[in-house]
């Protein structure tokens, strides 16, 4: 376990809740690095969460997710909403390093005190987010942000973790990325509540829209909510207000139909289960692997004096008695 740069504690939580951006920032670091204090901090923050609207933004690399996030955030600021942004970029599987470059498109928001932007590396997670994104969202939520954007890494076809973290998921696409079979494949196209076709001034935008429409009309499960498609040109600000209207419409829809409650219920369930599993995993690492006990069993198994099934049963019994 690492010692953090600054001793975090109950004061940090108090400072965060009373608006200290430094405390918020240090809290997210503690969460991300799994500092020892992190779970105590999350316990304190938890009662203050559940108020923010979480908008997920996903799509292939270069689709314009950051530029669109920047433009949407500006509009929500004009409406007087405070904004949190978590932008995830890939961590190198080779060096563990990362270039987190999403802020480049959002420099105009940096000095707006109503906006807080945090970049995160995926750090080995493969679903388009980092393992700690959901907890970082809670920190921004407790801080009092009205709307929290979660921008995934540039995704391919199957990185769909964003649906577990967001209330509304927006998929950003651009023309020229393949034929209509691409659009009926499984994966990210199944998770969009709202679709944005960015770079709509490029050739192929109308065709992409037609293909998407066809794909969405084929899906019989979309009787309650048929995901709308909006063409935008993010860097020129075109279509942004129309897109916001669709996002708001979806949010109203999920609130009125009870879908929001169901989605959040499912999210809590998943989180609880994952937390439980990872805690048991940590217990095993600490008490069985790091202590060297695991290695002691290996030679017995190799010599066929014992077998993995018996050992697991014994260890589980021991764990359950504690």
């Amino acid at each position, binding site marked *: *376990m*690492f*010692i953090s*740069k*600054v001793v975090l504690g109950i004061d940090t939580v108090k400072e965060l809740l009373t608006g200290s*951006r*430094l405390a918020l*920032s*240090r809290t*997210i*670091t503690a969460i*991300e*690095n*799994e500092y020892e204090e992190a779970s105590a901090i999350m316990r304190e923050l938890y009662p203050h969460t559940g108020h923010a609207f979480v908008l997920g933004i996903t799509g292939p690399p270069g689709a314009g997710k950051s530029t669109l996030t920047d433009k949407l955030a500006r509009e929500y600021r004009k409406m007087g909403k405070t904004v949190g942004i978590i932008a995830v970029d890939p*961590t*190198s599987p080779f*060096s*563990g*390093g*990362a*270039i*987190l*470059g999403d*802020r*480049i498109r959002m*420099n105009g928001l*940096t*000095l707006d005190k109503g906006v*807080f*932007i*945090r*970049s995160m*590396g995926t*750090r080995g997670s493969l679903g388009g987010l980092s393992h700690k994104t959901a907890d970082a969202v809670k920190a921004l939520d407790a801080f009092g942000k009205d709307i929290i954007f979660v921008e995934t890494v540039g995704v391919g076809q199957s990185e769909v973790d964003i649906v577990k973290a967001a209330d509304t998921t927006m998929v950003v696409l651009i023309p020229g990325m393949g034929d209509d079979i691409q659009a009926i494949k499984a994966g990210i196209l199944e998770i969009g509540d709202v679709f944005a076709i960015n770079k709509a001034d490029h050739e192929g935008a109308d065709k992409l829209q037609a293909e998407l429409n066809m794909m969405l009309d084929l899906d019989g499960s979309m009787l309650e909510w048929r995901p709308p498609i909006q063409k935008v040109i993010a860097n020129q600000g075109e279509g942004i207000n129309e897109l916001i209207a669709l996002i708001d419409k979806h949010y109203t829809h999920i609130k009125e139909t009870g879908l929001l409650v169901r989605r959040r219920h499912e999210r809590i369930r998943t989180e609880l289960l994952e937390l439980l599993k990872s805690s048991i995993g940590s217990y095993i*690492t600490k008490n069985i692997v790091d202590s060297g006990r695991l290695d002691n069993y290996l030679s017995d198994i190799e010599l066929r004096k014992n077998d993995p099934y018996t050992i697991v049963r014994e260890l589980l019994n021991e764990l359950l008695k504690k």
Partner: protein
Amino acid sequence: MMEKHIRVLVAKPGLDGHDRGAKVVARALRDAGFEVIYTGLRQTPEQIAEAALQEDVDVVAMSILSGAHPHLFPKVVELVRANGMKDTLIIGGGVIPEGDIPALKKAGIAEVFTPGTPTGDIVEFIKTHVKK
């Protein structure tokens, strides 16, 4: 257990439009296993300090080729410290005359890397000096 990732903000303060050097350094830091937050060209000291705060970086690394370093580097140090980030390592690079370096160090720039510095030297300096 998750390894502590060193986070570095790579920023270009001032108005010169040359970010090749900053990008080479950013890439070298990435390959050293650091998380590099790259903010792009033409940043004001205020923007750099605020980005450093939101990202909770361990290091702020700035590059200037325009000659504005005697003003901009110390200003960033002042703003970062005023934000309560007492331990953040602040380093600079670019076309910096030898004679200017003592004053920059006195103003709180931990080290200045001039053209020709092997990127490995910067990596080593950061690894040695970041307080954990």
